[in-house]
C-alpha cells in the first residue's frame, strides 16, 4: 500500500449510526473523511452532502460529440467520393441520422466511463480500509494527527461504532 494518511477507522453495522457519526464529524469541522459502504445508500449520501457528480457533463459532451461526429463522418465521406447510390442525394441527411444516433450513444457511453474513471481517480481515497466494507459493514476513516485521535475516537464510538481502531 502506498503511503496513506494516519487516522481513525471505525466500522458500523447500522446505517443510522453511521449517518449520525457523519453528521457529527461534519459539525466538528471534519471534511476529508472517507465513508465506505457495501451498497450506495441515500441516508449516507445525504449526510455527507456531496454535490451531484460531474460525470453527467461527460455524458452530455460525449453524446454531443458523437452526434456531430456521426453527421460529419457520413457527410464528409459522401462528398469525398460523390457517388450517386439508389438515386438519393449525395449527402442524404435522413439516413445519416441513424449513424449519428448510434455514435451519440457510443460516444456518450464511452465518455461516461472515462468520466467515471477520471473522477474516481481524482478523488481517490487512500485511507485505511477493511474487507468487510464491501460485505456488510459501513466504514468511516477520519485522517487526523495523533493528538486528535482520542477526540475522534470518542465521537465515532458515541455515534455507535462497533469497532474503532487507530491506523498510524
Amino acid at each position, binding site marked *: 500500500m502506498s503511503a496513506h494518511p494516519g487516522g481513525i477507522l471505525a466500522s458500523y453495522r447500522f446505517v443510522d449510526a453511521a449517518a449520525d457519526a457523519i453528521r457529527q464529524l461534519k459539525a466538528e469541522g471534519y471534511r476529508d473523511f472517507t465513508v465506505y459502504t457495501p451498497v450506495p445508500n441515500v441516508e449516507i449520501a445525504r449526510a455527507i452532502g456531496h454535490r451531484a457528480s460531474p460525470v453527467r457533463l461527460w455524458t452530455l459532451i460525449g453524446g454531443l460529440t458523437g452526434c456531430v461526429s456521426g453527421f460529419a463522418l457520413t457527410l464528409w465521406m459522401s462528398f469525398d467520393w460523390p457517388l450517386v447510390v439508389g438515386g438519393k442525394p449525395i449527402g442524404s441527411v435522413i439516413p445519416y441520422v441513424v449513424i449519428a444516433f448510434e455514435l451519440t450513444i457510443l460516444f456518450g457511453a464511452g465518455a461516461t466511463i472515462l468520466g467515471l474513471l477520471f473522477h474516481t481517480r481524482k478523488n481517490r481515497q487512500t485511507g485505511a480500509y477493511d474487507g468487510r466494507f464491501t460485505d456488510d459493514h*459501513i466504514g468511516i476513516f477520519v485522517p487526523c494527527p495523533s493528538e486528535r485521535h482520542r477526540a475522534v475516537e470518542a465521537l465515532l464510538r458515541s455515534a455507535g461504532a462497533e469497532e474503532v481502531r487507530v491506523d498510524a
Partner: protein
Amino acid sequence: MATIVREDQITRPTYHEITRDIAATIGSPSRSYYVLLGFVLVVLAVGVGALLYQVRFGLGVAGYQPPVMWGVYITTFVFWVGIAHSGTLISAILYLFRSAWRTAVYRTAEAMTVFAVMTAGLFPVIHVGRLWYAYWLFPYPNQRQLWVNFKSPLLWDVFAVSTYFTVSTLFLIVGLVPDIAALREKATGWRRKLYEVTSLGWRGTDQQWRHYTRAYLYLAALATPLVLSVHSVVSWDFAMSIVPGWHATIFAPYFVAGAIYSGVAMVVTLLVPLRKVFRVERYITVDHFENLAKLLLLTGMIVGYAYGIEYFMAWYSGSPYERASFWNRAFGDYWWATWTMILCNGVLPFFLFFRKVRRSIPAMFVLSLFVNLGMWFERFVIIVVSLSYEYEPYAMGHYTPTWVEWSILAGSFAWFFMWFLLFAKNFPTVSITEVKEIIPMPRKERVRT
C-alpha cells in the same frame, strides 16, 4: 451485544449471507457442469469444422439457390441479436423504472446480452463467405479512396450492432466492479489476483459511489433508446427493400417486441438450470419467473398481434404480390415453418394467463424452449419464405439448408453457452450489490438491545 431482530429481517438474507451465498457459486462446480461444458465444446468443434469446410470450398456448400440468397445465417444473426435484447430491457429499462425484482436476474440477462451479440456478430461475416474481408464493413481510408455506403441499412446495422456490443459490455463490466470487489476479499489463489485487477481498486468509498451511481444511471439512460434502435435497424435491413412480406412500416416495433420476447424466453431457459446448478434458489425465486412470464405474455401478445396485422395488411393493401406472398407463407412449401412460428409464438403464450403455468418452473422452461424455437422460425419465415416467392413466377425458388448451415447454427448455440458457462463459473451470475440494495441496511432504531 444480544440483538433481537424483527421477523421480516430473519426471513430476508442478510448482507453477509448474500455475499457468502453468491461467492459460493464461484469456484468448483459440480461434475454436471463439466459434462455440460464438454458437450458444448464438442458441438462447437462441429460448428467450427463446418465453417472451415465452407471457407475451404466456398459458399456453394450452403444451400443458397436464387432468389434465396439470405438463409440460415441471416436468420440466425437476427435470432441472436433478438436474444440480446431482453438483457438490456431487464438491466437498463427496468432499472430506470426502479423495478426491484430485476436485481436478482439482471446479471444473467446482461451477460446473455453480451454473449448473444458476440454470437450474432459472427453471422454476417460467415454469410458473406470471405471472412477475411470483414473489415470492409467499416469505413477506413483505402487505396481506391472509396467509402462505405451510409445510405444502406446494412451499414446502419454495422454501426448499431457494434455500438450495442460496446455499450452492453461496458454496462456489464461497470455493474460487475463492486461485486468483484466483494469477492476479492474471499477469493484465494489466481482468482484473487484476477479479482484484484478487475475490481479496479474498488472500495465502495463515498466518492466512488457518488460517481458510480450517476454513471450507471446515464449508461442505463443511453442503453434504453439504443436497445430500441438496434432491432429497429435490423428490421430495416428487410423493411427498406421492396420484397413482398418485408416492405412494411410495422417492422420496427414488430421486431423489437419479438426480440424482447425471444430474449426473455432465453433468460428463462438459462435461469432454470442456473439456479439449480449454482444453488441460488433463495435469490431467483418463483416470483421472478412469474414476472418474466408476464413480460413473455405481454410481448408474446404484441408479436401475435403483429402476425395478425401482417396478414390483414396483405389483404387490405389489395396488392396481389403481398397477398400471394402471405398465402404462400401459410399454405406454400414452407407451411410447416409458418405454423410452427404461429403455434409457438402466437398460441402457446396464452397459457401464461394461467397463474399455475406462470408459477410452475418446469412449465416455464418448456414454454421458453418453444418460444426460442418459434422465434427462430419467425425469422426464417420472414427471410427465406419472402425471398423465395417475390414477383415473377419464373424467378421463384426453393431453398433447403445444408448440413453445413445446420452445423454452424448448432455451433453458434455452443459458442453462446460456452461463454455463458465460463462466465458463470468465474463471475457472480446474481448481482451481489444490487440484491443487497433492495434490502434496507440494518438500523439500530429497529433493533432492541
